[in-house]
């Protein structure tokens, strides 16, 4: 069971049967004065996963990433990145980590290529003679070769974002961290980022991508961590998270009243759904439901497990948490079924 939800105390190791973790935080907390930016963040990034970090603006995604990369020292808690404690082990961990954090940062008076050359000069994994080749390859990969010699000042938002991505991909990495990589990109650019993430995943690279765009995460990620108000409210494999919550079966039938009648006689709760009925699977399994329907001569077009959908899940998690935090601050937790418990 690799799905853990905040509030469920999972012993260490039990949550990660899939293998070693590329990054891990425990009890992470960061305060700025009296403002609590991040609190009690226990994040697991399995090796080789594409983990999507979801959360509304201001939920602590970037702060968590900055602590993960050693840019910010946590107020409390521990961070391990590729096995090294951060920020002390930054010199060991970061050469194998490519990162695009808080938007691309480059000098406006230099061209895209010159900016990358300056960045590459500091790359420990590049020998001096390899720098030019690595920069050209990275530019090619993000589709910026044609604009490489133009000044960064004149770049569009999307081109700036691509250059930032090129910086993260200068050297073959073990892990790539992308903070809102599709900001400012057109649909074609967004697709290219997805392709690049897929390529990295195929090459065994661990990818951590933060976003507030749900569709983007659903399309590219194997794992998801949902942050809200500075805490992780849910994390785990995408598929498992989507099926969490109350399991139900969507049955498409022309005769909904007969179907509901047949189920009621078997004491299986159901209710009307857009194209048929939604059957609660807590009381019965899917085969039992179908058998009951067929025996009652109810015509069934199709039956499928209801996937909650990331949007539902996200709304449920963050909404509950918002109500909760209004009452008693950050201490509230959300259980798998989305019900708030103090």
């Amino acid at each position: 069971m690799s799905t853990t939800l905040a509030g469920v105390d999972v012993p260490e190791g039990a949550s990660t049967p899939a293998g070693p973790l590329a990054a891990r935080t425990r009890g992470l907390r960061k305060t700025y004065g009296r403002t609590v930016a991040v609190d009690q963040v226990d994040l697991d990034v399995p090796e080789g996963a594409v983990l999507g970090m979801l959360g509304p603006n201001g939920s602590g995604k970037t702060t968590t990433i900055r602590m993960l990369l050693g840019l910010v020292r946590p107020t409390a808690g521990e961070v391990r990145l590729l096995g090294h404690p951060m920020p002390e082990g930054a010199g060991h961990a970061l050469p194998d980590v490519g990162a695009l954090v808080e938007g691309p940062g480059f000098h406006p008076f230099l061209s895209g290529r010159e900016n990358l050359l300056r960045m590459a000069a500091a790359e420990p994994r590049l020998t001096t003679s390899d720098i030019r080749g690595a920069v050209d390859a990275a530019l090619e990969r993000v589709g910026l070769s044609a604009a490489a010699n133009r000044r960064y000042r004149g770049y569009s938002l999307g081109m700036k974002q691509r250059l930032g991505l090129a910086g993260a991909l200068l050297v073959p990495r073990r892990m790539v961290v992308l903070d809102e990589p599709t900001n400012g990109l057109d649909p074609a650019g967004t697709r290219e980022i997805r392709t690049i993430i897929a390529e990295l995943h195929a090459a065994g690279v661990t990818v951590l991508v933060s976003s507030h765009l749900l569709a983007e995460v659903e399309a590219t990620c194997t794992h998801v961590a949902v942050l809200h108000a500075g805490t992780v409210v849910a994390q785990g494999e995408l598929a498992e998270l989507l099926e969490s919550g109350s399991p139900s079966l969507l049955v498409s039938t022309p005769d909904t009243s007969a179907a509901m009648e047949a189920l009621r006689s078997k004491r299986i709760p159901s209710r009307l759904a857009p194209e048929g009925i939604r059957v609660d699977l807590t009381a019965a399994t899917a085969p039992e439901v179908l058998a009951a329907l067929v025996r009652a001569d109810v015509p069934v077009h199709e039956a499928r497990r209801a996937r909650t959908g990331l949007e539902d899940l996200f709304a449920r998690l963050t909404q509950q948490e918002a109500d909760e935090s209004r009452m008693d601050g950050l201490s509230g937790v959300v259980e798998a079924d989305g019900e708030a418990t103090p």
Partner: protein
Amino acid sequence: MTQATMTARERAPRAPLTRLLRAELRWIFRRPRTLVVLGMLALLPVVVGIALTLVDSPGPPGGGPNGAGGGESLLVSAGGNALVLPVAALGMALALLLPLAAAMAGADAVAGETAHGTLRGWLLTPVSRGRLLLVKAFGVAAVAVAAVVAMALTGIVTGLVINGGGTLFTLSGTTLSFPAAVGKVALAAGWVALQLWAVGAVALAISTWTEHPMLVVVSVLAGTILFSVLGALDALDWLHPFLLNDSWQAIGDVLRDPVPTGELTEGALRALCYIAIALSIAYARLTTKDG
């Protein structure tokens, strides 16, 4: 814990330092702003030389109200003297223009890079924060040296062109050979560069506390002016040994023969103290601040 100590013992991979320094220099001297400032400073001795020739003060030896040595009285001697012009120009610029250039370099080095988000880029590659300060201090020092050398060179050339090679007189009345004169100008330039390194170090320290480069430049400028004002108040003479620019007027001493070293040495030591303190503050801040 054991793993932590083990990883600490094993050396982390690092980019060669010379590569970082070269990248920093390329960045600094590609920046249009740096080149404009250096160009203007280099023009200053030329402008001063031409102005002095046009004013054509044939012989004002009597000594006006500003008899005691200083930038302005040096300028009086610079007319008709090829040796004095470069040193006088350096002394004049040291009052405000050169500190401004050093402050600009220091401001861009950390605050400017933070504002662009580029400092984060180097921290992530990673460059350790200690090395980052080393590279940045080197860059600021390089700008100071470039400014001083440019001024000294154009000063010497302008002086020779306007006054001819036979006018290399010291303030003590002796005449110097060309190499000896160049030596004196080099001494003045070196001393001025040292003072500018101190200014640059202070700018770098302020630079680590803000992400607004303008704030750094304004602070250094205000500090320089404030120090000049405080230095002019006799009632505060107990404070004067602590003011960096207290001995900046002594630059004219290099033009004497032999050179009185007292005040120049004191100024050099004071600059070294400023550098040590300012870089310590910059290090303490840079290694603890959020990137």
